[in-house]
């Protein structure tokens, strides 16, 4: 027979939460906290591939997704309508899922042989700004301007979909697996962003003005997306990576189609986001990444190893 105390506990949300995780060990409060036994992560590094390069490449693609997801998540409780909040949060969640696998793979490959593997949480929460390898486009602030969020997502998802579509043939099984799931997700993200670009660009004079301003604001950061880093160049030769320069024509074609249908003008602006030839892929970031990381990491850094 149940005691009064147990009856009381049954209506206690915190108690029921504890019950559902009762079979698990304590979880780290700020990480995923779950020992994720992902079959592919521990696959051997393909023959002829430099482990350090592969780890760095996984970080690049993982950090793009992680930082973009964090920016999208800023819209939770701030979006203009509930439906858009749900859409942006779902998009962020897909990217976060891709980031988790890529960071876990980076940590595993980086630590293989040395016994010092960092897990996905250590890589997300405990790296400093110059250790991040994402492109500047991912870290730009939206400043709660919905048009900016859509413009960035349109460019980011179009570019990433083109990359991942080619990565389906990667010799690295983790990159190929992430691509296999990612192309389906990114096709939805791109369609969502493209439809909003049409609706706002070809809408009222005010929505047109603001959507054009948003496209103008993100456009200087498009050029960086097609720069090939030394790491990528070496891995392309090994059949593992995609040369971002190769996706330019496809990405341009899609963006031109969307912009023209949306009655928007393709900006002609000088590129930004790189300094002295160094950009996000080399760990050189805009002033915005520090703010993203402060929000992303501060709790985990203030309470290292905290669990619940």
């Amino acid at each position, binding site marked *: 027979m149940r005691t009064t105390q147990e009856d009381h506990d049954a209506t206690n949300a915190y108690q029921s939460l504890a019950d559902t995780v009762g*079979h698990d060990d304590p979880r780290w409060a700020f990480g995923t906290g779950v020992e994720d*036994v992902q*079959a592919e992560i521990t696959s051997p590094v393909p023959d002829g591939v430099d482990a350090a390069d592969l780890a760095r490449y996984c970080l690049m693609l993982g950090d793009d997704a992680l930082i973009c997801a964090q920016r999208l998540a800023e819209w939770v409780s701030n979006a203009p309508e509930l439906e858009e909040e*749900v859409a942006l949060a779902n998009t*962020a969640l897909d*990217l976060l899922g891709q980031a988790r696998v890529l960071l876990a793979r980076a940590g595993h490959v980086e630590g293989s042989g040395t016994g010092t593997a960092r897990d996905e949480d250590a890589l997300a929460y405990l790296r400093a700004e110059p250790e991040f390898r994402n492109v500047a486009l991912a870290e730009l602030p939206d400043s709660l301007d919905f048009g900016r969020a859509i413009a960035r997502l349109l460019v980011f998802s179009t570019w990433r979909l083109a990359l991942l579509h080619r990565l389906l043939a990667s010799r690295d099984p*983790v990159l190929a697996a992430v691509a296999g799931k990612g192309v389906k*997700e990114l096709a939805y993200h791109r369609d969502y962003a493209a*439809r909003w670009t049409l609706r706002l660009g070809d809408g009222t004079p005010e929505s047109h003005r603001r959507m054009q301003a948003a496209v103008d604001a993100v456009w200087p950061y498009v050029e960086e997306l097609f720069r090939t880093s030394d790491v990528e160049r070496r891995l392309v030769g090994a059949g593992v990576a995609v040369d971002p320069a190769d996706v330019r024509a496809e990405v341009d074609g*899609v963006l031109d189609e969307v912009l023209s249908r949306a009655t928007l003008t393709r900006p002609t602006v000088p590129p930004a986001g790189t300094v002295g030839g160094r950009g996000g892929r080399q760990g050189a970031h805009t002033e915005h990444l520090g703010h993203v990381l402060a929000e992303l990491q501060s709790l985990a850094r203030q309470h290292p190893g905290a669990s619940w």
Partner: protein
Amino acid sequence: MSGAVTGVASAREVVAEVLDPEMPMLTLDDLGVVRGVQVDGDSVTVTITPTYSGCPAIEAMRDDIRARLTEAGYDRVEVRTVLSPAWSTDWISPAGLAKLAEHGIAPPGRVPPRAAGPIPLALSAPTAVVRCPRCGSPATEELSRFGPTACTALRRCTACREPFEHVKEI
């Protein structure tokens, strides 16, 4: 009697009956996410695949599988996830499709074969007919591509005016 001695079929059956945490009218078997159940003495290794990359339900599935197998007498349970090949809504069983419809969720259609080359841009809402799960009318419209869970879109029936969820084809 220990569950372990009842063998593979038993562990497989236990796992098959675990419910999906987000669409609890479906079992994990209906959803098509169980890739394998291997029994070795009193230890079991279960392999599942996530629906979407970031689907938070995967952790609840893992906890539930572990809990049910532990109750069934398996002392050591490992739940592994495998990403490739990527899950598709085509893997939802016919029984699962029927259960979704019974519970007011429009089931996914078949995923169309993908042509070679770049994935085409879709600038307007999908034109495939999605019937209202309540009144059966084909006159429904998409409200939002993203519903309350990663795998659903929001739609509305223009005949009976009811909003409903639709499991997106992926």
